[in-house]
């Protein structure tokens, strides 16, 4: 006959065993095993204790029952608390340092001159212009003759030319494409012509032997200098800003008459620095050459200057980018230093 004393000892032993065991539990799985060992409904120590209790005297039963319940509470409380600890630990392990840099595919960078060219093209395309191109190796006729540069005229000196043969040269401007397009197509014509041009210039911060130009040509009935002015003003406002300062002043180009050069207010010193390296203190930067298509040019491509008129304009893409981004040296564009080029990805 089991007695109360033995029962008490047994309960006490279980408690001691449990307290020892739980200290050895290192993972959640063992925790479950420990739980089963004591609380399993079939063979758990506590289930078996109940069987012992049944054998006690009736007056001892309530006290014994209380002992079991106390032990059960003790076990449950410890299991719960340890489980919680495991839970917290698990959370900590699972949690990454989300401040580490993320991963993205590296996106290659377009060359800034092309990027700026696209920016300019977009403005003209929005005004209904289409884009034309032409050869870089040109004949004397297309580069000069057809554009009303008489042979042996000093005007040719302003376009320092690289010659390949007596007749072939590297185009000094994109203007030959005007001639090629007007030879092919009847007006109305409304085009821009981007491309590489070449000059016999030793590279320095403001000169390059190769650079990009963008030429524009509009030919239709009734085109006037006022149209040229309105178009270029619109363009420069879109490219720089709505409040860009501009002025048109007379100039000379053999292929336009009247001719105009367009200046914008210095983007660097805003006409406040007399020593400004960009505008030389004048407050103005020359940005575009332009004018009304010369009647002789029209005659050279069999367009009647009495019936049609037109305007043309041209700008250096690299040079304009230089002012727009305040780049101090044009040569940076062609050194292809990726630390320079990649910055424009953010543009």
């Amino acid at each position, binding site marked *: 006959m089991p007695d109360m004393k033995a029962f008490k000892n047994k309960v006490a032993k279980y408690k001691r065993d449990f307290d020892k065991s739980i200290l050895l539990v290192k993972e959640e799985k063992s925790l479950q095993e420990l739980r089963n060992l004591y609380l399993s409904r079939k063979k758990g120590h506590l289930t078996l204790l109940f069987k012992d209790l049944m054998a006690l005297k009736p007056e001892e039963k309530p006290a014994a029952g209380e002992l079991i319940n106390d032990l059960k509470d003790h076990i449950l409380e410890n299991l719960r608390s340890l489980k919680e600890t495991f839970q917290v630990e698990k959370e900590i392990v699972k949690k990454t340092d989300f401040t580490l840099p993320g991963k993205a595919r590296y996106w290659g960078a377009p060359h800034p001159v092309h990027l700026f060219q696209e920016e300019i093209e977009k403005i003209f395309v929005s005004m209904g212009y289409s884009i034309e191109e032409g050869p870089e190796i040109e004949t004397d006729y297309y580069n000069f003759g057809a554009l009303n540069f008489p042979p042996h005229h000093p005007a040719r000196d302003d376009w320092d030319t690289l010659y390949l043969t007596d007749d072939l040269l590297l185009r000094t401007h994109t203007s030959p494409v005007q001639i090629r397009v007007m030879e092919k197509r009847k007006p109305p014509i*409304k085009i821009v012509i981007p491309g590489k041009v070449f000059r016999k210039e030793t590279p320095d911060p403001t000169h390059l032997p190769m650079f990009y130009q963008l030429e524009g040509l509009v030919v239709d009935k009734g085109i006037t200098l006022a149209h040229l002015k309105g178009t270029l003003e619109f363009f420069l406002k879109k490219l720089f800003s709505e409040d860009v300062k501009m002025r048109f002043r007379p100039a*000379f180009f053999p292929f336009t008459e009247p001719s105009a050069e367009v200046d914008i207010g210095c983007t660097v010193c805003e006409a406040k620095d007399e020593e400004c390296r960009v505008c030389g*203190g004048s407050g103005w930067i020359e940005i575009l050459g332009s004018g009304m298509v010369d009647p002789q040019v029209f005659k050279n491509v069999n367009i009647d200057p009495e019936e049609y008129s037109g305007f043309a304009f041209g700008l250096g893409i690299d040079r304009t980018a230089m002012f727009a981004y305040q780049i101090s040296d044009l040569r940076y564009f062609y050194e292809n230093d990726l630390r320079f080029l990649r910055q424009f990805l953010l543009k």
Partner: protein
Amino acid sequence: MKISLEWIKEYVAVKLPFSSLIDKLDMIGLVVEEWQEKDGDIILDIETHANRPDTLGHLGVARELAAGLNRPLKEKDWSLVELDQETSDLIDIQILDRDLCRRYSGIVIRDIQVKPSPQWLRKKIEAMDLNPVNNVVDVTNYVLFSTAHPIHAFDLAKISGQKIIIRRANKGESLRTLEGKVVNLSPEMLIIGDAAKPVALAGVMGGEDSAVSDATRDVFIESAWFDPISVRKTSKETGIKTDASYRFERGADIAMCPQAALMAASLLTRLGGKATKEVFDVYPKPPQKKRIILRHHRIAELLGVEVNEDFVQDILSDLGFQIESSQTGSWQVTVPFFRVDIEREADLIEEIARFYGYDKIPSDFPPLSIPEPPREEKREMINKIRQLLFHQSFDEVINFSFSDPEREAVFVKQHPEIAIKNPISQKASCLRTTLLGGLLENIAWNKNRGAEGLNIFEIGNIYFWNESTAVEELSLGLATTGFVGQRYWEGKDEETGYFYLKGTCESILTHLRYEPFSFQEAKHDYFEEGFSLAIAYKGEKVGILGLLKSHILDFFSLKDAVWVAELSLASLFSKQPKPFQYKPVAKFPSVSRDVSFLVKRNVSYQAVKEAIDKLSLPYLERFDLYDRYSGPAISRDRISLSLRFIYRHPKKTLLAKEVDNLQLRIIKHLKSRFNIQLREGGQIDKRARKN
């Protein structure tokens, strides 16, 4: 052109503030590039135009300014202290070539003591950034910078036979110039000769023998008109550029000849000399002044603004034009000789616009008309390629089209390179025949500056002679070394190399629909053997890809392996891509089968692929290589390939049995062709998948 403000004020009263004066000059087209104060004067540096030789002197600039300020141009008095001698008593002038010299005027000044100029004259010469020489030379320069008309002074005693003969040089003649340089003359050159020999290169430079010296007592002043092209050619031929040739080659004012001589004579008589009675003027065939009809309505048609008739008349007269009304609404305008640039109505309209003010021309938009839009396929394809390359982590570069012949020699080329006749330097004395040279220079540049992984491309022309045709050909160059993109902390850098570059090229060809393409092993001089491929579309070669040989890397001082490819976009674009065709999305599920097998290492994937393609199996939609393995489990001469086959019937769901039969045909075929061994116990993996 240097312009002294003090000097200008001798011709026109300038009363406005300095900054307004600068603006005024800018706005009539005489752009002031810079200015500086000098001895109480202000010297402007004015940008002049090649067609406006009249503005290469103070008088011309003053005339423009006077018109712009609406002020009169002051007349000056050029009186003489005269001798009782005619010029012709002392010298005889004969023009033998009347085309190249249309007018020749001269005057003699006697008993001039050659000595330093007075202070006022020295100051003028110094203002022009020249050093004063002596009174005679300084006077000739003074006249040039006043009137823009170059004149020359000879020591009369050194003119043999008292004769001035304007003629072409004879073969074998030579002249020692003022600067002591001996010039061999040719019959194309116009010279001034005396009875015996050449004494000056007409319009370019005088001779040393007849030059004014301290011992000179009598001088002969020449003031002539020489043909611009002739002067330009002589100047270019002899390499002598002077203030005189610069003006003559742009066109001198033929009407100015006697006046310029008179002006010099007047000044020299004030300095103690005595002049012959009048200017001896040989002017055999005075040309007609140009006459142009100017229609009032054309002004508005060209400028987009109505300009008042009175304004037109006033401004043109101020500028020295004679203007008469002919019919209603039009004028006949006579052009002064100093305006060599004015030939057409449009030229006159520009004059009106300049003084009306470009700033007062309204801003407008051209009429809305719809021009024929050109095709932009090429540009679109280029842009697509660029976008693909950016996506593949390639950065875009642009290199100069110039190259060093030594650099080109590193690459073996099919066609000779194009040399530049007048290059900037040896390093830029020809045009590139490949884009690779520039790309490798870029890699070296960036590696020297700490870059590790580099993927770059360029789209641009290469150039070469094909027989006698200078060809420019659009090309795409790619170069890659190291790894892709930037280093990542997880440490899994994507290695670049053959498959990365090939994948990039494949992607371009696929997206432009240039299919079927192939990459075939083909020897190339640039590439290491076994790492050298030809890229072809429909069997035609369009590019190359490979691992650069070490001697090429050495030339560019590169140490690490560099993979490159170059595609001829010109030849690719000249071919027709596969038409785009939409395929309806399949309604029935596909069935897939995976198979892994061992095959000898020398069997290429391409061969396996072609063998399967050749079967033309029905319902085989596609198949892909998803694993390639070699390792300890496999004998060393073999490789394991795993392929996934996707089958689909357009009108029904395929049964497993049907697919298995097709799959067996493939395996049988591969067994007989390549003696493959199936892996995983030879069982076909039957994981059918429905999607």
